């Protein structure tokens, strides 16, 4: 009982101080700088920069495609995690390390490769063409690359939880007469909720900021396939730093609100799981 207060790292206040210091330098300070820069605009200027019809279309596209990609990653990612944890098969370690590739590959390369695969003459695109599916230079193309860049996040958050999960509780559930679906939905899934939600949030956030890969496959047509980060680059091209950061501020605020609500959802599901 005496060593309840012993912690691995010495000094709570010291470690907390470090944490806050690093967070401020690495994250908080740049964000404050963004807000200050955007604050150099008057309110009408700010509004004119961030709330044009074109900008609204871009926000909708950015958040819509990111959401779609995050949902796909949620399903696909948890499936991959399940297979990697539960089934030993030859080449599993190779596939396991393959999952991290999207993090290491420069996303511009990913975008270029996807675009050349999915254009009408590409290896995959030529099979989609007869069905009238245009994968490159469309919203579908954007979702495809976002699924690519977001994949590791769901897999890597769900995987460790699944590894910890005891198969015996499944057996117990089965021996108590539960169907496979009941076991899945009432025993396995609730244990996974927090990890699923975290993975989803990470993949979603990653997609909102993604620029490098998307510009190569989206075609960047205003009102159709122009994502919000493109607008930022366009304003920088005019050396309009204020307007560029204003759009960034809007993206930040929306993302932050979404992430906070997802976090709340996660802690709520944690409480209900236990």
């Amino acid at each position, binding site marked *: 009982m005496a060593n309840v207060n012993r912690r691995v790292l010495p000094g709570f206040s010291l470690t907390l101080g470090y944490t806050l210091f690093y967070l401020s330098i690495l994250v908080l300070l740049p964000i404050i700088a963004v807000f200050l820069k955007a604050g150099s605009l008057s309110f009408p200027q700010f509004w004119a920069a961030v709330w044009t019809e074109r900008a609204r279309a871009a926000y909708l596209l950015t958040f819509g495609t990111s959401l779609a990609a995050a949902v796909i990653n949620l399903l696909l990612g948890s499936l991959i995690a399940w297979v990697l944890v539960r089934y030993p098969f030859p080449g599993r370690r190779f596939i396991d390390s393959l999952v991290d590739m999207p993090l290491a590959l420069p996303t511009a390369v990913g975008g270029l490769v996807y675009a050349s695969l999915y254009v009408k003459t590409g290896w995959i695109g030529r099979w989609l063409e007869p069905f009238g599916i245009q994968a490159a230079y469309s919203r579908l193309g954007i979702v495809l690359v976002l699924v690519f860049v977001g994949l590791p996040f769901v897999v890597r958050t769900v995987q460790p939880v699944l590894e910890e999960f005891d198969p015996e509780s499944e057996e117990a559930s089965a021996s108590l007469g539960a169907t496979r679906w009941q076991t899945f939905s009432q025993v396995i899934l609730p244990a996974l909720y927090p990890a699923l939600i975290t993975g989803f949030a990470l993949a979603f956030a990653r997609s909102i900021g993604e620029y490098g890969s998307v510009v190569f496959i989206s075609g960047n047509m205003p009102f159709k396939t122009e994502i919000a980060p493109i607008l930022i680059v366009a304003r920088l*091209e005019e050396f309009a730093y204020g307007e560029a950061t204003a759009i960034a501020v809007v993206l930040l605020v929306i993302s932050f609100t979404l992430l906070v609500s997802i976090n709340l959802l996660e802690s709520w599901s944690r409480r209900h799981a236990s």
Partner: protein
Amino acid sequence: MKRSRFLSLLLLGAGGLGAWLSSDLLPNASAADPAPKPAPAPPKEVEILNVSYDPTRELWKALDEKFAAKYAQKTGTKVTVKQSHGGSSSQARAVIDGLEADVVTLATAIDTDAIAKKGLIKDGWLDRLPNHSLPYTSTVVFVVRKGNPKGVKDWRDLIKPGVEVITPNPKTSGNGYLSFFSAWGSVVLRGGSRDDAVKYVTELYKHVPVLDSGARGSTTTFAQKQIGDVQLAWENEARLELKESKGALEIVYPEISIRAEPHVAVVDGNVDRKGTRAVAEAFLKYTYTDEAQEVIAANFYRPTNEGVLKKHAADFPAIRLFNITEIAKDILDAHKQLIGDGGVFDSIYKPKS
């Protein structure tokens, strides 16, 4: 112990990484001046930085070497010209934010001017070197597929039914807006009104299936992915693309096109602080010599020395090249009216069109 060995390896690695990361923090740690002030004797070694845009890599590499040789011969000082390449406007932003460029050789005056506005380049820079500070120029030409199957000869052919045009986004790319200006000039300088020009560019951009964010992207789209019938490109880049394509592409010269003006300038604020003014000025002046102009022509840029240009006349067809001042007050004004927020380009795209 195994663990302690692992730990010390880790520390060693971290130390090495730290040393490597910090090695470029001290400016020119290895170079000329270990003692700071006693400057009178000319330094034996000088390093200058030329901040340029993307496709000029080969050009400046050749010029840098030739200049270094010449300069060493004349003054006994060993000069190393370092190069930095990237998108023209991001390069300009880097210089504004503190990249210590001695000279800038960017794609358009808009970018150079943005640096000048921060006070790093003195007013009147345009007239401090010959030919409005232009050692070379270029223009916008058409790249088409072998045999020119769509029969594209001039700007008006670009809006014929079934013709697809590849050009980068004028909002995010210098090549993009230069192509736009060129298209605009092809109307207003051949008797068209402003309305005609608006109508023409509106129609033209309906023929653009993909707006890549930069010129590189456009080239990939056109040459590798085989999308589109015509690509609008700088002459020098078109020539390189042609060489790469091994006969799959051709160049078509329209009757009229814009004179692309990649100005050069000494960055006064930086050279005065670093004490590199003499070398930087000599470097830019060198680009006007016959020797340098030949290198320029060999890299498919149009030399501004009339004599050298004449010698290579076969390489550079004499089409009507118009100056930006024929369609606007200057390039900044053209950009503001046509590309900038609320400009003509913005009116082309309507929601759900």
